[in-house]
């Protein structure tokens, strides 16, 4: 079943306390080569068929509902063969 993937990230200038906590945990494990972690969102929108119209609608929804432009950026909207999991 094809899906449309929407990736959303918090704006770079905003605090990401969850990402910071993970980065701290990595450093404590001795995995300090990962100097920072930022956590975003991945939406998988299931569709019967990927068309230009449905992709355009997904892009619109990504900007209007799935993200808030004040605090987040839509990184990517793309069609994939199947859900990840």
């Amino acid at each position, binding site marked *: 079943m094809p899906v449309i993937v929407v990736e959303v990230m918090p704006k770079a200038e*905003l*605090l990401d*306390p969850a990402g910071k906590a993970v980065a701290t945990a990595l450093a404590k494990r001795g995995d300090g080569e990962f100097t920072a972690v930022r956590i975003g969102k991945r939406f998988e929108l299931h569709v019967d068929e990927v068309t230009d119209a449905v992709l355009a609608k997904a892009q619109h929804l990504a900007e209007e*509902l*799935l993200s*808030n432009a*004040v*605090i987040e950026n839509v990184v990517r909207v793309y069609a994939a063969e199947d859900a990840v999991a």
Partner: protein
Amino acid sequence: MTARIGVVTFPGSLDDRDAQRAIRLAGAEAVALWHGDHDLQGVDAVVLPGGFSYGDYLRCGAIAAQAPIMHEIVAAANAGMPVLGICNGFQILVEAHLLPGGLIRNEAGAFVCRDQTLRVENATTAWTHGFEQGDLITVPLKNGEGGFIADAETLKRLEGEGLVAFRYVDVNPNGSLDDIAGLTNERGNVVGLMPHPEHATEPGFGPDTPSAMRSGVDGLTFFRSVIERTLAAV
């Protein structure tokens, strides 16, 4: 004649009953409204209460802003009906684009619950005209995602046009830009704030004041203001 003020209950609303009680204490009739309806039942004003609608999924207030009744509320607000958003209700107003900016996780990363001093910055709105500009009031604040942000241009407009309704005094509990605790729209009928005026409306259950424990009732003025404005408009 008694003013009728609606309170919308969303899945996950927490303070809807408290808001109804505050409305009754202020002298109006509280009308329970349901998120799934398209009916405002002819109310004179609406309160969007605090809580955690839809478990704060997606973003705080984002899913509630899509609720059926929000179509009617946005239309009524644009036509001048007074709307007050408290805490999650403020987040819903922002997500519904009735107020600008966004609300993000508190700067300290922790939920904050305290009696908060606020300065009234705009005493001309439907919900604040019973105050004097510059009044210091105390109402409880309790949120995890109350940090107000907006881009520089929006912030400049809010400050320049007097659209900041309330500002935090002494302590900025959540890292809000310019200490902004609440906003109004240009028309002054839509007001949103993170602190909870409905929790400061009944002696014995409000915030502490210098005169007595739990005696603070500064929140009553919000509801009395809108009642007066509503009845004056008839």
